[in-house]
């Protein structure tokens, strides 16, 4: 005999996930930065996925997580990174009374929908998908049987839709070259001109330093007088401050030479 009567697992899932979904949706609405909105959106999608699972729809549960949370949301995050993470919304109203009327419209629509649900109240316990799922031996085979019989033309139409979308995205997102691309001859002439006018070295830049224990691109090459050749390391690395300290690089060699010199002195001292 259960302590709390008539509470099924799907009800527990609903009362746990529904508040999470609503809170996450409000977070999506209210957070200033697009990145935060995307994270809230992930919360909504995952809790909806759990609700699908509670509704005997395991295929949609998996698809919701893979396609929505995995693919679509990652696409959103990519574009947020591309367009600028710190671009916050301006809070200035461009149309007078826009915000108030928008909130009124949203509340009105929500209230109307909820009232509509209450008005045409559905009676009785739900039929459940157990029978429909078992018809072809599982949720996915049953969905496939439906998809490839009654809905086969719509399914084929989605193929055309997806191809069109892929081509459209490639065309839209393809950047146009704003300036003419320099040919090899032009870049050569530019290099020689820079040498003639400003004395810029026309040859290739010096390679990074090769030491006994380091030869990464962050190790600077040394000039004959022991100073660093500035051009041997990338400017970006220098700005990040990841350039390896020369004294640190020299330390093993110096200590080795010192040890050798000491030994030599010792041996020579023995000879005497």
């Amino acid at each position, binding site marked *: 005999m259960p302590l709390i009567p008539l509470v099924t697992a799907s009800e527990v899932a609903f009362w746990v996930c529904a508040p999470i979904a609503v809170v996450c949706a409000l977070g999506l609405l209210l957070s200033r930065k697009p990145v935060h909105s995307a994270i809230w959106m992930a919360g*909504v999608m995952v809790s909806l996925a759990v*609700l699908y699972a509670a509704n005997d729809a395991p295929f949609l549960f998996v698809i919701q997580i893979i396609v*929505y949370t995995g693919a679509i949301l990652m696409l*959103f995050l990519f*574009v947020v990174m*591309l367009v*600028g993470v710190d671009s*916050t919304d301006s809070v200035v109203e461009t149309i007078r009374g826009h915000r108030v009327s928008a909130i009124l419209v949203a509340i009105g629509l929500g209230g109307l929908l909820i009232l509509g649900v209450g008005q045409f109240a559905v009676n009785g316990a739900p039929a459940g998908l157990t029978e429909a799922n078992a018809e072809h031996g599982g949720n996915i085979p049953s969905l496939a049987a439906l998809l490839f019989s009654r809905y086969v033309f719509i399914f084929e139409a989605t193929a055309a839709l997806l191809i069109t979308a892929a081509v459209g*995205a490639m065309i839209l997102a393809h950047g146009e070259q704003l300036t003419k691309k320099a040919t090899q001859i032009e870049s050569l002439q530019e290099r020689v001109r820079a040498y003639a006018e400003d004395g810029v070295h026309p040859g290739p830049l010096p390679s990074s330093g090769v030491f006994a224990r380091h030869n990464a691109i962050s190790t600077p090459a040394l000039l004959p007088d022991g100073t660093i050749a500035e051009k041997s390391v990338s400017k970006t690395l220098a700005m990040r401050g990841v350039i390896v300290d020369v004294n640190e690089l020299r330390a093993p060699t110096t200590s080795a030479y010192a040890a050798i010199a000491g030994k030599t002195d010792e041996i020579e001292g023995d000879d005497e």
Partner: protein
Amino acid sequence: MNPEGYLVLSAILFAIGVAGFLLRRNAIIAFMSIELMLNATNLAFVAFANYHGNLDGLIAAFFVMVVAAAEVVVGLAIIVAVYRARRSASVDDANLMKF
């Protein structure tokens, strides 16, 4: 359980999506609000499928997801193209065709 709870949740999420679309001026967040609305309708589809005991609702939700994926790809490409041209993702700045 009754589908009413799911339908009310779906209505609330849809209303929040509408509010987000009307209020936010960042094109990406407006787009996310559209996705929220699509998700809300999907929830209603799944709840009704469970109530009626047939799988057509799940198929409908599946097709909504396919169309949403295609729509997101094209929409985000448009946002990126507009951003390239105007250096802004705000829907207020794309007003060239404003009368």
